């Protein structure tokens, strides 16, 4: 190699690049090696062979290559040339990704059509195939620092090794004698063309497939663009404060109970305060003055984040009011839904204690200062920097859409599509009830929309980001649901955009104390704990695992601080003035049930943990698992090694264009976190241990995986029962899978089916094993039977993905079969169904 003449002292640096290049077959590297014929065989014999054998000039050679690269299939599944259907969607996709990467592969394989040429490439190599791979080259010139070529292993059986002396002399002699060529099939250039011609049309598809169909699109909001018009048209309505506020302050007579009003958690409250007097405020002030004029009971004054611009905001019209006028009912409806608790007062009190526990949060220093001044300076104005206020708004208006229906329109026609009936944001009550309905029937996109509508009604609609607003526990819950659903749908970028105004979820206006008149006496954060977790985890999916972990650790630090406070007998926030005293004074007499203060000292922290079932450690685990997961999967980084096939094809879950590649974290973290989770969830120990085992299995560490699986067997021995038995069998099957023994794995999966015939996982996995055993038809039969048996349950995207993959492999009529799957799906799945698993597009 080039570095052969390098001096012996300076060894280390130069060899690797050279080697790297040969790996990716740079012509220069090969050229340089022309002198050492026999030495380069295994690396790039092809191209320099071709240089010798082809009379075409380098340039034209390249050109021909380029053409051929395009035409070649290098693909997972191909369709036969006589296939009339075009179900090569994924195919094309793969190919497309292959293409750019090929560039670095350089002039490889020329003129495939002329197979003879390919055959003659072997001229430089020995006739003995096994020996070809032996590479003795670079070691000789550079003894101090060997550039070791990857020399393929000799077969498992220990195929012979020609030995050192043998190897070094051998090739030279034989190099001149070309091996017996395969009959040069020049007589049949035909099929080449048929195949080559095929992928071309498919190529236009892939970009669509590669990204999540919904991902980056920013839909302009009609309400946004039309906002100014509405302002002009409907000023009078806006003057009226939101219904809930008017209920609060304007007409106290018709509320059910004062106490319950103040605890407006939707679970207890009798109304919903999804409203915001600033809804229409379009004048962004640098400072929003916060005045708390105490006894005054006018709606505007009661609003703590009251600003000079309030008059204007009332005059200016908000889409919110428009929205409300369109659907006048919602709030009263919700009232009806939540009304009817036996004793509102008592419930409110006990809930308040639970609320206090779950709302407990420690603000950061700056935030705490603001909150203290709000609390103490009752009669003066507190100025809060606009920067430190939370001003969220919808960043996109409408992600609604039903991909299933779109596909039906495309493949099954309008009539079939018309049969598809899913709920959308309009077809349900414009309330939390409707929202829950949408979520439970898996119409998450519609649910996201409905959240958006409700938030718009609250004045945080499209385009409202950056405008002063105020928050209620309910508005934050709506945000949580919306963001959670976006994450669930894999729309991470969208979620990130809308999360952004919330900052680190520690701004003063996210605390109850900021609104002493709306939530008198209530303390803590209005941000749901789940939202903090979501906030942290989202970064993970966006490819910033470190940020995720940092955020989780911040959450953890505050949790730990609260726990310490509780252990020391203090209130959550570390204050001495705990409610306990008030309790003792008998202010809230009927208060024992949920008061964990009356539990022993020791159990108070436990109660805190119980009130946060999503304890951080669990999420630390999820988070660090993702680290690992992210690293483990090849990801979307195409062509890193100059190879063509680093692409990420369509798959049920990995479609999001998230670049996992930069993750440097450690799966060890995941395992550690798992262990800590076991402490908190001892009842899940076998599952968690199995999970650790699977992590090791995926990473390829079969031995450690086995160790964990053995632990599982020990643990499950204690608890007899079907579940433990299944777990053990499942693990054994996975272990065999790791040892490449699909037959045994299949046996164990089948064993599970014997004791639990409806086990979807075992069913699917057994079918997968069958495919690897070369039994495509059996495999398909098994999966189809399973889906037919209980379509409601088994039409899962993973199963469907396997099914469609096998259809593609099985016959040229996969399109019909996929379409019938689409029909089956259409009857059962909501708008959140991931249609990519059907591979129809």
């Amino acid at each position, binding site marked *: 190699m080039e570095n052969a003449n390098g001096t012996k002292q300076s060894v280390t640096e130069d060899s690797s690049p050279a080697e790297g290049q040969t790996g990716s077959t740079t012509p220069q590297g090969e050229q340089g090696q022309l002198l050492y014929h026999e030495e380069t065989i295994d690396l790039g014999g092809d191209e320099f062979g071709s240089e010798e054998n082809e009379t075409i000039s380098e340039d034209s050679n390249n050109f021909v290559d380029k053409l051929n690269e395009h035409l070649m299939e290098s693909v997972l599944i191909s369709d036969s040339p006589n296939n009339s259907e075009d179900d090569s969607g994924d195919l094309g996709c*793969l190919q497309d990704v292959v293409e750019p990467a090929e560039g670095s592969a350089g002039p490889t394989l020329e003129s495939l059509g002329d197979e003879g040429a390919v055959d003659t490439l072997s001229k430089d*190599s020995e006739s003995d195939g096994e020996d070809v791979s032996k590479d003795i080259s670079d070691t000789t010139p550079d003894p101090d620092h*060997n550039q070791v070529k990857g020399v393929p*292993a000799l077969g498992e059986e220990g195929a012979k090794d020609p030995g050192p002396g043998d190897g070094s002399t051998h090739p030279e002699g034989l190099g001149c004698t070309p091996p017996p060529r395969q009959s040069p099939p020049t007589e049949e250039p035909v099929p080449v063309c048929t195949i080559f011609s095929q992928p071309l049309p498919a190529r236009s598809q892939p970009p669509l497939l590669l990204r999540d169909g919904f991902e980056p699109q920013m839909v302009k909001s009609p309400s946004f663009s039309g906002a100014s018009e509405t302002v002009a048209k409907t000023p009078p309505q806006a003057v009226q404060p939101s219904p809930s506020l008017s209920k609060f302050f304007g007409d106290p007579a018709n509320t059910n109970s004062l106490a319950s009003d103040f605890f407006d958690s939707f679970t207890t409250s009798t109304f919903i305060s999804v409203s915001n007097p600033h809804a229409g405020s379009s004048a962004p002030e640098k400072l929003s003055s916060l005045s708390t004029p105490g006894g005054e009971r006018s709606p505007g004054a009661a609003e703590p984040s009251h600003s000079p611009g309030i008059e204007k905001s009332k005059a200016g019209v908000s889409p919110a009011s428009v929205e409300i006028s369109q659907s006048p009912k919602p709030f009263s409806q919700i009232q009806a839904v939540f009304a009817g608790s036996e004793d509102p007062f008592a419930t409110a009190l006990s809930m308040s204690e639970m609320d206090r526990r779950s709302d407990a949060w420690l603000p950061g220093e700056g935030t705490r200062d603001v909150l203290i001044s709000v609390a103490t300076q009752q009669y003066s104005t507190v100025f809060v920097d606009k920067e430190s206020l939370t001003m969220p708004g919808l960043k996109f208006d409408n992600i609604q859409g039903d991909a299933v229906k779109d596909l039906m329109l495309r493949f099954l026609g309008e009539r079939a599509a018309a049969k598809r009936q899913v709920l959308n944001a309009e077809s349900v009550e414009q309330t939390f009830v409707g929202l829950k309905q949408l979520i439970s029937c898996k119409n998450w996109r519609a649910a996201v929309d409905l959240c958006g509508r409700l938030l718009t009604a609250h004045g945080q609609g499209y385009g409202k980001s950056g405008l002063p607003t105020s928050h209620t526990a309910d508005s934050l819950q709506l945000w949580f649901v919306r963001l959670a659903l976006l994450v669930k749908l894999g729309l991470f970028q969208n979620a990130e955009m809308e999360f952004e105004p919330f900052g680190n979820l520690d701004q003063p206006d996210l605390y109850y104390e900021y609104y002493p008149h709306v939530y008198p006496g209530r303390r803590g954060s209005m941000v749901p704990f789940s939202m903090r977790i979501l906030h942290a985890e989202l970064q993970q999916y966006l490819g910033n695992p470190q940020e995720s972990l940092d955020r989780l650790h911040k959450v953890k630090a505050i949790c730990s601080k609260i726990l310490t406070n509780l252990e020391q007998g203090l209130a959550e926030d570390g204050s001495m003035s705990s409610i306990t005293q008030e309790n003792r004074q008998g202010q809230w007499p009927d208060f024992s049930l949920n008061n964990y203060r009356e539990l022993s000292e020791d159990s108070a922290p436990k109660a805190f943990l119980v009130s946060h079932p999503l304890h951080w450690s669990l999420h630390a685990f999820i988070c660090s698992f993702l680290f690992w997961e992210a690293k483990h999967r090849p990801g979307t980084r195409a062509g890193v090694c100059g190879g063509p096939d680093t692409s990420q094809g369509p798959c049920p879950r990995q479609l999001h264009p998230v670049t996992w590649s930069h993750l440097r974290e450690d799966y060890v973290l995941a395992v550690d976190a798992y262990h800590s989770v076991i402490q908190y969830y001892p009842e899940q120990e076998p599952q968690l241990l199995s999970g650790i085992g699977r992590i090791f299995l995926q990473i390829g560490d079969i031995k450690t995986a086995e160790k964990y699986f053995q632990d599982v067997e020990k643990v499950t021995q204690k608890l007899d029962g079907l579940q433990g038995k299944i777990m053990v069998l499942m693990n054994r099957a996975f272990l065999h899978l790791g040892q490449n023994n699909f037959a045994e794995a299949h046996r164990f999966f089948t064993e599970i089916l014997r004791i639990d015939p409806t086990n979807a996982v075992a069913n699917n996995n057994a079918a997968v094993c069958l495919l690897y055993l070369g039994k495509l038809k059996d495999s398909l039969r098994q999966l189809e039977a399973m889906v037919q048996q209980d379509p409601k349950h088994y039409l899962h995207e993973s199963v469907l993905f396997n099914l469609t993959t096998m259809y593609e492999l099985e016959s040229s009529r996969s399109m019909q079969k996929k379409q019938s799957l689409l029909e089956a799906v259409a009857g059962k799945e909501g708008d959140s169904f991931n249609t990519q698993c059907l591979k129809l597009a």
Partner: protein
Amino acid sequence: MEVNPPKQEHLLALKVMRLTKPTLFTNIPVTCEEKDLPGELFNQLMRDDPSTVNGAEILMLGEMLTLPQNFGNIFLGETFSSYISVHNDSNQVVKDILVKADLQTSSQRLNLSASNAAVAELKPDCCIDDVIHHEVKEIGTHILVCAVSYTTQGGEKMYFRKFFKFQVLKPLDVKTKFYNAESDLSSVTDEVFLEAQIQNITTSPMFMEKVSLEPSIMYNVAELNSVSQAGECVTTFGSRAYLQPMDTRQYLYCLKPKKEFAEKAGIIKGVTVIGKLDIVWKTNLGERGRLQTSQLQRMAPGYGDVRLSLEAIPDTVNLEEPFHITCKITNCSSERTMDLVLEMCNTNSLHWCGISGRQLGKLHPSSSLCLALTLLSSVQGLQSVSGLRLTDTFLKRTYEYDDIAQVCVVSSAIKVES
């Protein structure tokens, strides 16, 4: 020339799918607390999802296997497995079907089909299935050539082929470096240390199952990649048994010549074959790869005919104070008696004391003599002892000895211990 035959011409369809290991389905768990708006809904949805782990729904890594989603990468040393399915798309029985799968590499063509026997007949909607395996031994372009021939009902002989190209990439970058042990100044230890740097140049983590050095017949090898801790052998790589993309790991081996070779010092001279590295790794769900390096060769330190080694040298000396070293000069030639002249050349920092150009007298083959030399340093710091020249008067050949050893020169104010 039917360059582009119309579709539907063939009754059979050929499909190929690479069988990488299946993957485990992962969920994106989104949960909430009971008091949150969705209440139990999120958790219920996860429980209803068949791909979640029963009883621990929040685990991302489920148990559901999914088939490979793309071709993926294939690396040297891995096994290429592929499903080949020939399906009868037509409604007639097809006879004498012969499916042949060859792998064309840059240097050879291999037949991968399990059987080369023709199938007598294939009914409509039936398949001929084959799973092929091939351990990839070459880098670069590979082409899977699948040829199908059959006879139609009408007796017409049909034939078609399909090509599937893929690139085989290099998974590892291996660099080696030899160190000659000279710890023992009194004798020539022929121990050789081999440092091997193995870099993962793939895009996914690798679990290194085995990295061992298979020594050549002349050497015994001791692996220095684990330490004994509390009686247990612990790898020096810690708990990370895997190698991240682009990460490099160093393995160290100590090679000792076997006795029968060590005695004849002359044999281990020049280029010797040390052995080869054997590397086994695993990735996703136990996907295995194995590589061996070529024979590692090492140029024994060039002692030439005359070897100069150090017998004694202080490690720390005072600035501008003479100190003594003892050199040993060995005639390594086979049968030539040498007449040597010693020259001493000063360097910037070190100055030799005594006469340069003196005769050392006759030195017989395989004999040696010891020389006490004096020098002083005019510069502080770590100084290299250089500048000795031995000239064989008979052959008029000069041997240069630079950088023989290093001494630490300190200011005289600091007391040097003995």
